[in-house]
């Protein structure tokens, strides 16, 4: 990651919730034009970190910069796209109504919507009410909403949950296409097969950064053949340290 221009820079970030440090002094950077995967056991602080990057998380201390500006600045709001873990769209509205609303808010035109429904394969759903659709379809509508303003930085919290393998593959093609356009994607995932597809990985555990780098490097450093083994080894090694303390 070093050398490349950073789209996201986090320094000594501490987030405390309910008296517990959810993020305990995190320092990391996300290189521009990459698909960076955010991995870690549930409760590791992935969602909190993503919320800090998009500027909706109250933080105790530390700094988060996106495209060189403090996270949450007004100037960033048209340059960042965010997909939350739940679908976070209007379930009582149709797919088209949702997209038209968020496009209007972002100042995007109808052409943009037409492109998105095509590439996310939801064109046939535009007149359907979101609540009546499957989880995978809702996830794609949610992704479309995150993309509708044509953001330079995309923060996607488990965007492929509930998708079948074919759709999942298509989504990852889309992500890499966006990165090839110079956009930066920070994607959290639980699926190790997806971790393999990332340019870089950030491995988070108990609010700390356990490892960072390209998937092969992380696997190599943990003397593992695959990212999944590396993930398990690193997390278990950390747990042993924690028990020993």
């Amino acid at each position, binding site marked *: 990651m070093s050398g490349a221009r950073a789209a996201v820079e986090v320094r000594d970030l501490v987030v405390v919730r309910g008296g517990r440090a959810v993020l305990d002094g995190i320092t990391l950077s996300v290189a521009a034009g990459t698909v960076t995967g955010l991995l870690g056991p549930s409760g590791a602080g992935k969602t909190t970190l993503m919320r800090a990057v998009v500027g909706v998380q109250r933080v105790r201390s530390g700094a988060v910069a996106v495209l060189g500006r403090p996270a949450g600045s007004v100037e960033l709001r048209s340059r960042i796209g965010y997909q*939350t873990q739940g679908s976070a769209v209007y379930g009582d*509205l149709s797919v088209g109504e949702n997209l038209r609303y968020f496009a209007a808010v972002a100042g995007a035109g109808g052409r943009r919507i037409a492109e998105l429904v095509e590439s996310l394969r939801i064109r046939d759903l535009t007149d359907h009410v979101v609540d009546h659709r499957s989880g995978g379809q809702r996830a794609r509508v949610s992704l479309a909403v995150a993309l509708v303003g044509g953001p330079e930085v995309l923060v996607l919290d488990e965007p492929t949950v509930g998708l079948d393998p074919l759709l999942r593959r298509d989504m990852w093609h889309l992500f890499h296409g966006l990165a090839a356009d110079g956009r930066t994607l920070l994607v959290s995932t639980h699926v190790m097969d997806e971790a393999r597809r990332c340019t870089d990985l950030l491995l988070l555990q108990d609010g700390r950064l356990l490892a960072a780098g390209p998937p092969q490097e992380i696997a190599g450093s943990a003397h593992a053949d695959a990212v999944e083994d590396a993930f398990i080894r690193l997390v278990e090694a950390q747990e042993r340290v924690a028990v020993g303390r």
Partner: protein
Amino acid sequence: MSRPASLRITYATARRVAAQLRRDPSTVALLVVVPPLLVTLVRFLFHETVFDRLGAALLGVVPFIVMFAVTAVAMLRERTTGTLERLMVTPAGRLDILGGYAVTFGLVALVQSAVLVAVASGLLGLRLTGGIGLLLAVAVLDGLLGMALGLFLSTFARTEFQVGQLMPAFVLPQLLLSGLFGPREAMAAPLRLVSDVLPLTYAVDLGQHITGHAGLTGTVIRDATILTAAVTLALLLAAFSLRRRTA
């Protein structure tokens, strides 16, 4: 944020809230059909002369309660479904979002009051000195007050169940102290003081006043000014209670 973008987002939000209402027939029924039914019930519970005396004040209180309940839940849903958090990452300003809600529910208050006044005076024969025009204005103002307080108070609820709890905890005391159930002059001094600072008091006072007086009297202007100020203040508080950063 530049003005045109702000207006565009307010307009888009108003349309979106309206689209959500269109897809929710039971809420539309609660807003437009239930108030006239309630007033009809009151008409037949009492003698005609009682209805003439209470009617105008009642026509203000009913839109207040209904608008409060609907808008509090609407804004709560925006928060609990995550869409508000999502909007906070976009160029949408807090006032743009609140403005969108105010425009749509303001129009709803107008339609609601028009139906209510038409039923009360046309079908139920409500007689008042102040006239239909003034009665409509009072009902709309009270609906707007319910809307503004609903949007604001929803900040203090985390679930729809808690919005339900706001009804006895927040709406009922205002109703009891408003002077609808007995003259404010007869209240004990401390209660009278509390009554003085509750906005619904002025809504009821306005309704009672136009029952016996015609024209834009000093009381009408004073009460209407206080109510307008309360609506504006509650809407501003509602906007600023939409937190961009949360724990």
